[in-house]
């Protein structure tokens, strides 16, 4: 019997040796990444409601460019891009803002804005597509929501937003008010963290490549805008670290391969729809 127990112990030991790596380190990381609640319907709804309020603020601050043809064109480009995003379950809405600033915004839940000024500085549809892709990435990666850092009991951020929106207590309403103000500050004043901008650049470029547009269009647009910035100082938007971003974009183009592709820029159709 003693011999039998040894056999058993040896096998048990071998078994645990195989099992342990999965229960620690990378294995555990993978398991934890699956415990992700942001795709649950209730949380997505909360995200949309929150973003919708924020979108109304953006429109109130900048004004809507009430040009049906132009808005339809921007929506066609944007929605085609959104189909290649990681969250096509959202309905994406794109709007042109009546402002000569060169800027673009994204509110959680699928609301994307681009200023008339930015459109007028673009040179082709690929540039529009990749800028919209960049903004879509801010939504898919929930950069605003993450920055708000509202935690639910289970530790998930978006469930926290759902809790606030569904909350009826004074504390919940106050917290929602603060969250909305903080989100407005991010969009209107402080900007995103540089790592979020770089991530949005990367995903926007890969999304454009996946859709068939030239992924280098974002780099070209930022370089173009940077030139304007230095010439007349007109552009003082929220993306002051263009040099860093452009360098990172070069890394993405080199590392992921899209630079090798001869993708479309779609210039003719862009100028037919955007009156430069």
């Amino acid at each position, binding site marked *: 019997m003693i011999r039998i127990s040894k056999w058993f112990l040896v096998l048990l030991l071998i*078994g645990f040796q195989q099992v342990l790596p999965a229960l620690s380190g990378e294995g555990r990381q993978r398991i934890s990444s699956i415990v992700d609640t942001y*795709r*649950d319907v209730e949380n997505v709804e909360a995200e949309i409601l929150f973003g919708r309020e924020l979108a109304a603020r953006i429109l*109130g601050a900048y004004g809507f460019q*009430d040009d049906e043809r132009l808005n339809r064109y921007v929506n066609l480009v944007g929605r085609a891009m959104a*189909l290649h*995003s990681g969250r096509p379950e959202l309905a994406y809405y794109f709007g042109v803002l009546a402002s000569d600033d060169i800027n673009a915004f994204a509110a959680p839940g699928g609301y994307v804005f681009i200023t008339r000024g930015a459109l007028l500085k673009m040179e082709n549809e690929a540039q529009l597509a990749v800028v919209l892709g960049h903004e879509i990435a801010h939504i*898919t990666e929930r950069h605003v929501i993450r920055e708000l850092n509202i935690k639910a009991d289970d530790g998930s951020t978006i469930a926290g937003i759902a809790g606030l929106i569904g909350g009826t207590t004074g504390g919940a309403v106050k917290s929602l008010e603060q969250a909305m103000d903080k989100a407005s500050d991010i969009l209107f004043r402080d900007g995103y963290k540089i790592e979020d901008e770089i991530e949005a650049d990367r995903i926007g470029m890969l999304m454009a490549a996946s859709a068939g547009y030239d992924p280098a269009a974002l780099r070209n647009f930022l370089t173009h805008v940077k030139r304007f910035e230095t010439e007349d100082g007109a552009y003082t938007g929220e993306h002051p670290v263009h040099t860093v971003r452009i360098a990172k974009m070069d890394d993405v183009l080199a590392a992921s391969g899209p630079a090798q592709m001869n993708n479309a820029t779609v210039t*003719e159709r862009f100028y037919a729809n955007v009156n430069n």
Partner: protein
Amino acid sequence: MCIHQNDSISTKKWVVYAGLFFMTALTVLLPEWCGAYDLYVSSVKAQVYRMPDAGSEKLFELKMGTGLGGMKKAGYWHQVAYEGRVGWIYGFQVGYKPPVKKRDIYGSFKSLLEKYNMFTSRARRRSSAYSSVAAARGLKETRRHMNAQYRLDYNALEKMESIDITENQAMEFLKEGIRHDTHQ
């Protein structure tokens, strides 16, 4: 002799038990140990490439919701297996959970807006002042305060939301632009 026979039977029994334990552990955890994990396509369609390089050969295309086995992650890419074929897919086009369907969200979204006291109101249509609009929406007093310092434009928002473009229209528009540009 009898004792030896009993020993032999017990040995076999324990070896079987241990083997079962071992196999169970491997079955449950081997995929994790080997690096396999579940992935689902989360974009409308996604290309699988031969290499982690969009310039490499396109092997096949997968539709949204398709389940596939992740093998490893390298930079922006996942190496995946699907129906015996192995290739690489962009990381941002897959998720660890099946994507929520649009109809699951927007089917109930109208009632959600109503719950939030932000939806249609006759008085809102009559009003043009933003502050009056907010009031006419019937927002709870506390929630109205939330936006008090901001000008809100729900009319423009609804104009944006009313632009009706189907997924097919968007996809056809994209294909036409790319095709035309490539042929030039």
